[in-house]
């Protein structure tokens, strides 16, 4: 785990980005060891994938090297040693790592582990907690992603004039024949895999969020190799924005339906003829909503970032 320290030391931002990617892969590996497979899944897709991608794009725009000035070094050291001391102090009393008798495993969690099978009817407890017991948090999470999409749109979107469009945006990688062919072979299975992850979330690790990221990744791969313009013809930006909103609304509509039938918001049990059935349907629809929002927001973010790259390159040349 010394990678992080290396990140702190290196001034080459590019190397730092890659190290952050490795760091995130490592921590995802750690999550697997710690039994958090869903988390590992997400961290791999997000930390190593999307955020590295975004950092790279940004570096492309902002330049690779960091200046050597570090004005706040002293203060930083003081602040972090105080915080570290505090944490250290706090950690002295903590329950022993992995102790099954620790309070964290006693109060709320046992119900999820013991009863979620009959109450929600899904093998993957994480999914049932995520989408049902704490479904409202997940709704909030979807909205957070949506907010980020809006933020990026508000900051980076611009109206392209006609001349801009004619100048090929994010030009395709012409010379790489092998890359083009391999990607063409790969993209359909990736999309299929995304669908599999989407609907397999009940049984194994996965779910709407991860599926959305994978789906977006496939399209991003396409955009990187065949050019942004071609991609934008296939996936219209306006449609993506619409879909991003639609995903949130799908999630909310489940809540509204249960509200109108006299139950609490997001109470899925009304959706089927019995409670467990309803839970099943509810989680399915909700995950679909999450998937749609996540995929489209990721695409919105990526497209806006990379069209900025073009815009700046045009203005430089």
């Amino acid at each position, binding site marked *: 785990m010394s990678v992080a320290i290396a990140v702190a030391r290196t001034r080459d931002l590019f190397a730092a980005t890659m190290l952050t990617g490795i760091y995130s892969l490592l921590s995802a590996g750690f999550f697997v060891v710690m039994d958090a497979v869903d988390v590992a899944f997400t961290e791999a897709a997000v930390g190593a994938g999307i955020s590295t991608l975004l950092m790279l794009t940004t570096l492309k725009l902002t330049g690779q090297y960091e200046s050597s000035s570090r004005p706040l070094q002293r203060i930083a050291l003081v602040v972090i040693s105080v915080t570290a001391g505090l944490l250290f102090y706090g950690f002295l009393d903590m329950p022993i790592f992995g102790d099954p008798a620790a309070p964290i495993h006693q109060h709320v969690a046992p119900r999820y582990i013991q009863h979620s099978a009959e109450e929600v009817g899904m093998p993957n407890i994480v999914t049932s907690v995520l989408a049902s017991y704490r479904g409202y948090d997940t709704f909030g999470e979807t909205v957070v992603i949506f907010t980020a999409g809006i933020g990026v749109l508000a900051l980076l979107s611009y109206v392209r004039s006609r001349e801009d469009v004619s100048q090929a945006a994010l030009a395709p990688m012409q010379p790489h024949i092998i890359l083009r062919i391999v990607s063409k072979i*790969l993209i359909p299975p990736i999309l299929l895999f995304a669908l599999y992850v989407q609907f397999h979330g009940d049984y194994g690790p996965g779910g709407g969020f991860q599926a959305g990221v994978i789906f977006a990744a496939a399209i991003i791969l396409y955009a990187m190799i065949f050019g942004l313009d071609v991609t934008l013809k296939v996936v219209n930006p306006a449609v993506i924005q619409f879909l991003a909103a639609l995903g949130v609304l799908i999630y909310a509509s489940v809540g509204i339906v249960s509200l109108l039938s006299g139950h609490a918001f997001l109470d899925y049990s009304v959706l089927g003829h019995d409670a467990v059935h309803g839970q099943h349907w509810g989680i399915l629809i909700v995950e679909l909503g999450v998937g749609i929002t996540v995929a489209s927001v990721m695409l919105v973010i990526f497209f806006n970032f990379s069209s900025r790259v073009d815009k700046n390159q045009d203005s430089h040349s």
Partner: protein
Amino acid sequence: MEGFWFVLTSVFLISGAFLIFTGAVGVLRFPDFYTRMHASSLTDTMGSGLILTGCLLLADHEWLVMAKLVMIFLFLLLTGPTANHALVKAALHSGLKPKLGAEPS
């Protein structure tokens, strides 16, 4: 697990691990980018193939698991060389010269 299968699995896994390890040593020790690339790409593909086959034998007739392993294998088989190819091409384009034997060591 039966004796024969056990031995077979072990052979696959251990030889895969050996390849991976040698590849890593190569990447660390070889003098320039192109030789390192050579070490990494060959052993990576072969080594992961072997290890995944070993896992396939371990999977014990769970079809979904086996299918996934095959998927991973195919995926690595396709992407590994492709990525390395693209990498070398980029390096060559950018003017990174291989170190040739003529140089004094």
